[in-house]
């Protein structure tokens, strides 16, 4: 008590040290998490024992005993659970990546359209965004699934052009029969893309050294399209179409997209596209008006302002939330389970019911989604670093 009378007061108790408290709180949190983990593990084990369910991964090597409607890798019911899970993962990846690609295109188009000065264009885009993002994604998927079911039977299929059929069994398109020349055409395409990139670099180099601005779009497109076309023509232009044809109750030949795939793809694409459109719009609108005025005052053309001033600054705002949209699209692809698309969740659920290996089946699904999502995250973080321009 006598000490307290003497200023300055110096409390030396370790309990009041910031460094000590930081470590202590972390240790407490680790202990709490460890306890929770142990409790859950113990609880599950006890319950599984009581119900006489064996745990383990052995079931993966047993025959699945059920079939799936579509698969990228060949599959029949005598093959293993491991293989059917792989088929499910591939189906999920298939719909997710095509969905991400299309949703990005749709979102960018609609986002730019929304800030357009053209009244009709901007209103159409606004209507799209407001309708699509305000309806739950489940309804989108079910809606498109129902629409497809209302389409005519294969025998009365719509034929928008020769060889293409739209029916309640999906979309059938003619497909070129494989030819020995095609790998070379593909190779020419890769060369063409490389050539276009080199051309773009050259055009930039030339602009910086002579001041001459060369548009890259048309020459670049010509190289990318022209080179494979040239190889194909020089090789005698081989082309035989494999047309889908009605055999029995459905079409055979060509390529086909199943009604489940189309419904799921359109549903998640249209839904996510609306969110991406809003992100793109907010990115463009985040650019201070003074930036555009200053560019105009310097005499810059609209296209240059967009490319050198608006887009580089807007991308920083656009990329991080768009990455989240890619993740949510991927996870929303699990709604395939509702309409019979054999995605990972669909197959996981069926396997779970067949084997009773709930913990393992769910662990597989969680791990796969985690892996896909983390991969997308890593890629998008990398891309974000590329576009996250310095300001100081």
């Amino acid at each position, binding site marked *: 008590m006598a000490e307290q009378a003497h200023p300055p007061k110096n409390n030396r108790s370790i309990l009041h040290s910031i460094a000590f408290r930081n470590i202590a709180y972390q240790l407490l949190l680790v202990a709490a998490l460890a306890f929770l983990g142990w409790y859950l593990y113990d609880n599950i084990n006890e319950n599984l024992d009581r119900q006489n369910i064996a745990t383990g991964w052995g079931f993966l090597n047993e025959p699945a005993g059920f079939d799936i409607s579509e698969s990228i890798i060949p599959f029949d019911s005598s093959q293993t659970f491991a293989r059917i899970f792989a088929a499910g993962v591939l189906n999920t990846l298939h719909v997710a990546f095509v969905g991400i690609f299309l949703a990005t295109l749709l979102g960018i188009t609609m986002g730019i359209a929304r800030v357009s000065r053209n009244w009709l264009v901007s209103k159409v885009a606004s209507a799209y965004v407001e309708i699509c993002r305000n309806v739950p994604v489940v309804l989108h998927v079910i809606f498109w699934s129902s629409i497809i079911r209302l389409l005519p039977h294969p025998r009365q299929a719509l034929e928008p052009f020769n060889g293409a059929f739209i029916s309640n069994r999906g979309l059938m398109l003619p497909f070129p029969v494989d030819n020995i020349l095609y790998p070379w055409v593909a190779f020419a395409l890769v060369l063409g893309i490389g050539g276009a990139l080199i051309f773009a670099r050259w055009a930039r180099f030339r602009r910086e050294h002579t001041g001459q601005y060369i548009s890259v779009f048309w020459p670049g497109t010509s190289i990318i399209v022209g080179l494979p076309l040239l190889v194909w023509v020089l090789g005698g232009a081989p082309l035989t179409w494999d047309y889908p044809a009605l055999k029995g109750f459905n079409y055979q030949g060509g390529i086909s997209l199943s009604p489940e795939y189309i419904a799921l793809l359109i549903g998640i694409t249209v839904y996510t596209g609306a969110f991406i459109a809003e992100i793109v719009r907010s990115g463009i609108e985040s650019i201070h008006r003074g930036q555009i005025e200053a560019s105009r*005052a*310097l005499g*810059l*053309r609209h296209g240059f302002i967009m490319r050198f001033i608006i887009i580089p*600054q807007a991308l920083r705002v656009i990329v991080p939330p768009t990455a989240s949209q890619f993740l949510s699209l991927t996870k929303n692809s699990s709604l395939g389970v509702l309409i019979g698309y054999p995605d990972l969740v669909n197959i996981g659920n069926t396997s779970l019911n067949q084997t009773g290996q709930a913990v393992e089946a769910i662990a597989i699904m969680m791990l796969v989604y985690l892996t896909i999502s983390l991969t997308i995250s890593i890629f998008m973080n990398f891309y974000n670093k590329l576009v996250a*321009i310095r300001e100081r």
Partner: protein
Amino acid sequence: MENLKSSASSQKHERLVIELTGVNKWYGDFQALVDINMSVRRSERVVVCGPSGSGKSTMIRCINRLEVHQRGRIVVDGIELTDNLKNIEAIRSEVGMVFQSFNLFPHMPVIDNLTLAPMLVRKMPKKDAEELAMQYLERVQIPEQAFKYPGQLSGGQQQRVAIARSLCMQPKIMLFDEPTSALDPEMIKEVLDVMIELAEDGMTMIVVTHEMGFAKTVADTMVFMDAGEIVESADPSKFFTAPDNPRTKLFLSQILTH
């Protein structure tokens, strides 16, 4: 032809580079500019002042078409401003503008801010554009900041970069829209010094400002605006000592009392 045109368009010996004739502008029901008539000769320095909301900024922003006037004629360097995009671009590349809020491009180093327009609009090779940029950075006395980003500079430095950026287009006319209003007091002088030097070199300038000391130093003509009208346009010696209009007197007494 050239002689005919200049003798026809000007009673004085110098050629008019900016002519505003009966310019009117409305924002909805609000009339921002009322029958503006003004002409600026080559190398003339015009300082525009007036209370806020009087239309000063709107008027100079009409000169490079950042705002669109609805009635009247604006002719800049012999080109009439209409909605013809080529004319607008031609005029903008001859008319430099400095803004209150600098409006530098934050994602580019200073040097790129300066070389962008000369390269894209004037089709200047990069090397030449960079030489030109360094030349103007030296003129505004911050060549050592060339590779920093705008966010790393002080307000005064940023405004000097903005002036240099405009000068890199080698404009015939410079418009200044309250260039020192967003600056801390100790940085105003460095910007005004650059502007005084520019005036001494014979640049045609229209400056919207409340810096009356600067106005007295450089102005050939003082313009006072109120409620969208040019109330008074006079020689600085007359303007500051014996203005004709009572509104001008009131305004000057309000800003010169302290």
